[in-house]
């Protein structure tokens, strides 16, 4: 009960904050918002300098969205149904004479049904040292994401900026055994840019700390036969009856990264080239500082965003390439108990006696290209758009020795469009269809031992998901209108969206959402 009240309060606060002493005659419309977003090339960058490097179009939106997804085609650790309630708000704003700012908050809460085999946030192509039980259960989650960016205007051609991202989360399982996972992460990125005429060069570096903690697994039933599994990579998982008792693990990841961006603007053409790099090191800690291993990550890539303004519209062409690696070192540790002869107190510590370097490795490649043409009518904003995209995705996981391997390659393609139908009374209805297709190029699963519980219950059943091609079609209808509240103009929208996915002989998924929001 408390959460709907919270959301209603947040929405009212947003409405109130949208009004200021200046009493704008007109609030930004959905058409103008689409146009503004299309002209914000730096949206894909983490660099706060982008708030000043291109003209800042002041705008903001807030909405409350309810959605439900039903999944017959999916993976074991994803569950087969999800109900979600999300509140999202963002604002671009000039602050005084010298600063440009952006802020956003995203609060989501929901329930996942019939999920199993992982009680943590990450399941795929990431840290293999997860844990979970085989029993299907419901999971409740609550996540809050904050982002704040601020950048100066050019000061002797230098632009100074800083970005802060902060996320907290809670994932609770509602069926025995009942773990609770808490997440806290933040990223702080100062940046500096140099602008000279048509050119801007920006550099940002960040520190990202992520902490995920699973503690306090409880049961409310008296059965003592629950088996709790600890995974170490691919099919390797140790299951212990009652293994949840006293179990706890903390994951602490320190990531250092940066972005280098170059922008060129001239004669209606704007291009932004960004290279990014990040390296992380994650430790896992159990009771008495026992450490099953470490996980190191490396990610880098480049993005090239292009915008061409013509008389009638905007051309967008974006290319994106990302490469990621993960490597897990596995430890064999022994417990050493030392008793102080004077006090009789016994202390415990763990000693690593064997270390397997890179025993688990993960590799991902993501390459995408997308194009969009937006019919733009000056200050009125977008009238329609059409676009297409294509992409290539590859992932590979290896566990060696006791060599096991899993990999897949996909091609994605899709088209999307939108048409705004202007109606009386300064209202409009947008119809936005999408169609997408995924083609599997190849999949391989070669396990040293295909009889383990994790192989039989997770990896092998998941192969259906990876092997099948699928079609996905969606439609979004957005109705937006103006409403005056005590003389103040406000712009509201209602968006209903539905997706249907059909896999080749392997089931179908549906997703429906409805959102109510306003622009400010």
């Amino acid at each position: 009960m408390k959460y709907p009240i919270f959301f209603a309060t947040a929405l009212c606060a947003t409405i109130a904050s949208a009004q200021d002493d200046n009493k704008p005659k007109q609030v930004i419309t959905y058409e103008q918002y689409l146009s503004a977003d299309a002209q914000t090339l730096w949206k894909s960058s983490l660099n706060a300098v982008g708030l000043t490097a291109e003209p800042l179009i002041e705008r903001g939106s807030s909405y409350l969205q309810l959605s439900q997804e039903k999944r017959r085609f999916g993976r074991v650790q994803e569950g087969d149904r999800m109900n979600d309630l999300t509140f999202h708000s963002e604002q671009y704003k000039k602050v005084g004479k010298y600063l440009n700012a952006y802020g956003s908050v995203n609060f989501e809460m929901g329930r996942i049904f019939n999920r199993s085999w992982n009680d943590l946030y990450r399941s795929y192509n990431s840290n293999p040292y997860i844990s979970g039980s085989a029993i299907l259960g419901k999971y409740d989650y609550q996540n809050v994401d904050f982002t704040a960016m601020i950048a100066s205007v050019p000061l002797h051609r230098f632009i100074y900026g800083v970005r802060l991202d902060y996320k907290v989360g809670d994932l609770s399982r509602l069926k025995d055994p009942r773990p609770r996972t808490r997440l806290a992460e933040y990223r702080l990125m100062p940046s500096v840019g140099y602008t000279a005429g048509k050119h801007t060069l920006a550099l940002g570096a960040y520190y990202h700390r992520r902490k995920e903690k699973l503690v306090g697994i409880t049961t409310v039933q008296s059965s003592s036969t629950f088996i709790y599994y600890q995974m170490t990579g691919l099919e390797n998982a140790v299951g212990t009856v009652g293994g949840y008792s006293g179990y706890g693990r903390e994951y602490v990841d320190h990531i250092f990264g940066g972005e280098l961006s170059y922008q060129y603007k001239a004669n209606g053409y704007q291009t932004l080239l960004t290279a990014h790099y990040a390296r992380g090191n994650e430790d896992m800690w159990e009771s008495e500082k026992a450490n099953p291993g470490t996980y190191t990550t490396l990610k880098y890539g480049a993005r090239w965003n292009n915008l061409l303004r013509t008389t009638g519209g905007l051309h967008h062409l974006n290319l994106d390439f990302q490469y990621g690696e993960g490597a897990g070192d596995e430890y064999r540790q022994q417990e050493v108990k030392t008793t102080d002869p004077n006090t009789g107190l016994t202390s415990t510590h763990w000693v690593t006696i064997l270390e397997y370097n890179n025993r688990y490795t993960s590799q991902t490649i993501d390459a995408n290209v997308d194009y969009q043409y937006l019919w733009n009518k000056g200050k009125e904003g977008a009238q329609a758009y059409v676009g297409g995209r294509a992409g290539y995705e590859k992932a590979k996981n290896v566990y060696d020795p006791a060599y096991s391997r899993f990999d897949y390659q996909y091609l994605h393609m899709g088209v999307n469009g939108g048409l705004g139908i202007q109606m009386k009374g300064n209202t409009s209805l947008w119809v936005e269809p999408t169609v997408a297709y995924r083609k599997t190029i190849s999949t391989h699963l070669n396990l040293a031992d295909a009889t383990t519980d994790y192989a039989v219950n997770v990896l092998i059943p998941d192969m259906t998901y990876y092997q099948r091609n699928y079609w996905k079609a969606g439609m979004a209808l957005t109705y937006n209108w103006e409403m005056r509240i005590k003389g103040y103009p406000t712009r509201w929208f209602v968006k209903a969206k539905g997706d249907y996915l059909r896999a080749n002989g392997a089931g179908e998924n549906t997703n429906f959402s409805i959102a109510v929001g306003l622009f400010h």
Partner: protein
Amino acid sequence: MVTFALLLVATACTLHDKNAATLVTVKVQVTLPAEYGNAAYAGRTVTLGNATATTDANGVATFTGIIPDIYTITTSAELSGAEYSALTGNVVDSYQYYTISGTLSNQVIQNESTITLNTLSTKAQALLISKLYYAGTNDNAGKTYQAAKYIEIYNNSANSVKVDSLYIGVAETNGAREFDPYVDTEHIYLKQVFQIPAGSNKVLAPGGSLLLVNSATDHTASNDMDLTGADFEAYSTTYATTTEVPDLTFVYGTGSKPITYLTLLPGTNNAWVIFNYPAGETMELVYGPAAKDKNATAMLNYRYVKLPVSYVVDAVEALKKNNSATYDYTTTKRFPVAIDGGYVTVSATNGRSGEVVYRTVARTTADGRIVLTDTNNSANDFKVGVNTQTAKTKLGTVGEDYAIVTPRTYPQ
């Protein structure tokens, strides 16, 4: 300079710059006890982790393609009287069996190596502990039920054996063990001792068994066993007892108010022995190190029977299950390897699973008598079964096919 820059870029662009583990070849040299002279342990199976190899003419088993890890290496073999005579030159009865067994626990294997596995030779005992039921179960209301615990003793020989005055004891169970069996290999330390009443004239026929319980009643309504056929019962006010079944003699227990039922507890170690003690001799009582600085009453909790291993007839060391896959159980063993070279655990860390530790069948003689496995190593000799079909159904997902084990039945 360019090369350095490229190297730097290459290093920064990949994580695969550390050497991965390589597979190794391990040779295990099995050595026989002194009584076997220069004889070699040839043509026998040695187990390293999940791998097995057969020893060559020199008693060496070679394992190839081994992943560096921590392993338990075991071997066991049963020698007939004729084989024993041929190897040692000692003349023994033809029906007598001997077991050769050796265990190396938590052996770290990192490189190509030759490991020596020493073995012990033991004459097959007549009396064995054949079952330990200490896990308990949940009754049909889901509540913990601990009343139907039992110990079963079996006559593994071809001769009748008189069992009155036989002692039964359990080792101390403190969180940190009081005495290190790898240091003091000549004694074990018991916190509780019972005795088959002297003068009971109880005799076990070949293949016969003795059932010792805490409550000789029918527990089937509570999802457990019917123990009305028990031979002896430990008297206490904790469990419902009956006058139809004679009581065990309570000999000793730690504490100022000792527990008088068999302390078969699920959340702790259960290292049990059966032993004989010379008539007329008094059992030696000693204090463990934990008694230090305790008052007189508290010290009694840490006073134990010090028993020479030479008096032990049979022992089984069932240890508390630890969740960690790399847990070193040798740090919690109570018995020297001379009386039990290994250990066994149930799968549930805190019991209530209906699991029963039972000794497996080695063979059946021509006249139908069951001979149970006895290599003096609980890891080889025992398996874990369950008391009821309900428990079997619950544990079935572990991947093992649990046998249903009841008193006086002997699954393979």
